[in-house]
């Protein structure tokens, strides 16, 4: 074998320039992640992919694979931290899944199910967030945005448009739209753009497509997110 790293005792190869996440996906190993999508530049913001590399916490989606790394991906401590991070994401926004069209297909929810999360643990912010239904084909519900930056990256890297940006910090953080009015209808976003379809949560939805698949028969109703994620992303790597 050429150069290798070890994840939970399993030795896997990597290529120069790969991150730990890249090498793991190529070896069909799932490391939980939300803000990462192998088709886009890593962003490293959600911290769900935190693993222990030679005893230190690192974000697998941004940390380069290096010869001989001894990596822990699954441990009670790491799963506990990941659950707390997910719970923070839930209380930071307003996630009322029974009233959300994305339910069952939502990656945030899929991660919560995967982590056996039953509650939100923290007090809720009940932040006052807006909805923008101005665009003829696309709806944004800011209540469900987790600031993963994927729509920003998709718009820049694939659509070459720059429709979205994240502005502000902490509680004032907000997804903003590049148009004079600040409204989606006056932006360049089109229904065929990658950015319109990349959102892992129910924050960006396509109008008139709701409830085509009944609740209970949706992706994470049927399969765990590790299966779904590897089926999609491992293939993409080949």
């Amino acid at each position, binding site marked *: 074998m050429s150069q290798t790293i070890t994840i939970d005792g399993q030795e896997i190869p990597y290529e120069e320039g790969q991150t730990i996440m890249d090498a793991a996906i190529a070896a069909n190993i799932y490391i939980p992640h939300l803000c990462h999508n192998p088709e886009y530049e890593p962003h490293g913001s959600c911290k769900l992919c935190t693993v222990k590399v030679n005893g230190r916490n690192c974000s697998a989606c941004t940390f380069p694979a290096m010869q001989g790394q001894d990596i822990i991906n699954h441990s009670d401590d790491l799963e506990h931290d990941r659950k707390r991070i997910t719970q923070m994401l839930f209380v930071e926004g307003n996630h009322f899944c029974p009233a959300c069209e994305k339910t069952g297909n939502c990656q945030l*929810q899929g991660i919560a199910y995967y982590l056996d999360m039953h509650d939100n643990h923290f007090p809720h912010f009940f932040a006052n967030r807006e909805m923008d239904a101005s665009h003829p084909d696309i709806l944004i519900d800011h209540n469900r945005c987790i600031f993963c930056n994927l729509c920003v990256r998709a718009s820049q890297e694939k659509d070459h448009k720059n429709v979205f940006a994240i502005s502000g910090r902490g509680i004032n953080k907000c997804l903003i739209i590049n148009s004079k009015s600040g409204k989606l209808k006056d932006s360049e976003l089109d229904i065929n753009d990658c950015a319109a379809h990349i959102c892992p949560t129910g924050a960006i939805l396509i109008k008139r497509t709701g409830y085509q698949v009944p609740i209970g028969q949706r992706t994470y109703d049927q399969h765990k997110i590790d299966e779904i994620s590897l089926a999609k992303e491992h293939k993409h790597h080949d």
Partner: protein
Amino acid sequence: MTDKLKVATTSLAGCFGCHMSLLDIDERMLELAQHIEFDRSPITDIEHCGPCDIGLIEGGVCNSENVHVLREFRKNCKVLVAVGACAINGGLPAMRNHIPLEDCLNEAYIDGLGVENAQIPSDPELPLLLDNVHPIHEIVKVDYYMPGCPPSGDVFWSFLTAIIAGQEPSLPYELVHFD
């Protein structure tokens, strides 16, 4: 029979859907009845909670009475369970949290479609509304959570049979749902 587990249940700011779901265990209710008996519950009409083994709380906290009832349950129940989305995160009633209370009352009792003899109810007997609807874990310590809107009959069954058997309740993947 004194060795039956005592169970109390209540619906705070909920829709009774979770209670309906408990009834959805169907004929398994007969088996359950051999192991538990109900204390305060809409099923018994007992008005106050005595010492109990399990308290099942449906619904979040939207008014002053909800706070008193919740505290009564916590005081009396060895194990307190948040049942369903509303008890866990406020649920759909909490979608009013970003609307000022006055606007909610005006819409319901003054300006709403088909309102006659418009007036905001102000009888001193009525519990006062809180400005926000809260999940119950923000007010009392909660021991277990049953997610779902509502949690299915199988979730109730799985949870209650585990407690009856003296085991730690846990849910298989198929039973963990937020919708």
